[in-house]
């Protein structure tokens, strides 16, 4: 049962991800991205990481993508039909593809994944309280750093969008 769901949602996630990359219409792309997030959330559910799944939907699908859509609509981006692909795009795509190939090869050659251990690690995120506790003790530094990154980006946006008085 779980396997069937896994395949359904993985295929859905991949299909939606391809939709994001290949769709010319920006709104289509955004909707596909939402689809990807939802399928990812479903995969998290299959991993019994309910909290993560719910937060994925709440934050990414529910808030971030609404803002995305909001901006797309405000800018009213027309379909970029015959846009010429620049050399930078090609280079970036090639590098990205290379990294992906390396990743797949690395995962395939990793011994620890091939030899499936009998005692799987306990998923700490299942229990909400443990999740919170771990977040604010063991993983406090990464969390703070992430928060600080967000703060930087927020300040950056404000600094960039603010009209400077040149007088």
């Amino acid at each position, binding site marked *: *049962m779980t396997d069937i769901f896994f395949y359904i949602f993985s295929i859905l996630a991949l299909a939606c991800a391809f939709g994001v990359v290949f769709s010319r219409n920006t*709104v289509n792309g955004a*909707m596909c991205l*939402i689809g990807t997030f939802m399928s990812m959330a479903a995969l998290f559910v299959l991993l019994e990481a*309910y*909290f993560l799944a*719910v*937060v994925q*939907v*709440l934050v990414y*699908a*529910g*808030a971030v993508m*609404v*803002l995305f*859509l*909001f901006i797309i*609509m*405000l800018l009213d981006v027309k379909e970029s039909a015959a846009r010429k692909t620049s050399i930078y795009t090609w280079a970036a795509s090639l590098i990205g593809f290379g990294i992906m190939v390396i990743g797949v090869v690395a995962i395939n050659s990793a011994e620890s994944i091939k030899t499936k251990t009998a005692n799987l690690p306990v998923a700490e995120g299942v*229990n*909400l*309280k*443990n*999740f*919170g506790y771990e977040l604010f003790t063991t993983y406090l530094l990464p969390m703070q750093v992430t928060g600080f990154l967000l703060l930087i980006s927020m300040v950056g946006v404000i600094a960039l969008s603010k009209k400077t008085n040149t007088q």
Partner: protein
Amino acid sequence: MDINFIILKFVYAAIVVSVIMGLCSYAVLAERKISSWIQGRVGPNRTSLPLIGSIPVLGPFLTRLGVFQPIPDGLKFLFKEDVVPGHVNKFYFIMAPVISLVPALTTVVVVPFGRIVTDAGEVVPLVLANVNVGLLFLFAISSLSVYGIVLAGWSSNSKYPFLGGIRASAQMISYELAMGVSILPILMWVNNPGLEGTMNLFDIAQAQNGFWFAMWMPLSAIIFLVCLFAETNRLPFDMAESETELVSGFHTEYSSFKFGLFFVGEYAHMVIGSCVFTLLFLGGWNPLPFVTIDMLGWGAGYIGAALSVAIFLGKMCGLMFFFMWVRWTLPRFRYDQVMKLGWKILLPLSIANLIAYVFIIYYLDTSL
């Protein structure tokens, strides 16, 4: 996970969804009746059914009350001509009403609507899925319903729906923040140290055997209620619709059954919102503060279960009445006022409220 279990869940889900839909259709009737009473009118009082309508005293009484009105209302939505204007983006235009209704009906699965005492003496919720992260699940799914409105506004490809969609998306994001922060004190109180962590709506309702949360967290309750009005797009926050400015906002281009889906979706959101407020702040199925059904001695067996459902539904209907009552009392806010209220008043207020309750709960936990 055998097949019987799945079928049973399907049947339960069908029952719950049909009850919610029935509640929605009668909420529409209630809205029409309450609005007419407040405005000194009579309201729908003509529709009658052939057999029931001709029972001597009861028939005319029910007809005057408009009890049969939802039937022609629903039929009207089904059979009116379905106009799809030529300038719309067809795919999203058709998908939008579905997207706005589905989240509302999906959130029902984690809403407990009563409790039953099993033979083993255990108190078990009457709920489709007893999820530990119930409250978050509910917020997550209901935050998706904004896509229905946004896509409707965008795909209609005309200016008034577009403005409605833009307004709705901005408003919903703004009020979701204050809404989320306002319920944190409750979660802090329910998850007191030593207990298993929970965001289960059932546990939250069960934690209100004494004080209801509305009584000792009134500010949270008020902020949550205001945000609930904004999230369900009800007056005084119906920016997405605001028919005096935007014709009828995001569903201007919609007709017939597609409009009906939006319409039902709005009321479904209201029903769910009322359920959640009842569970979080009004003590769920506890008849009075400090009084539970078990204390009255009626808590056992199916009678207790039925009683808990009845009390819960009663509170929910009272809240629905409040929604309608407010709608026919207050005028709509101006858009800048809505934004100002959300960002400059409710959000800081809810954060201040949270910090205050951090200290209060810490004090209560350590000194008592």
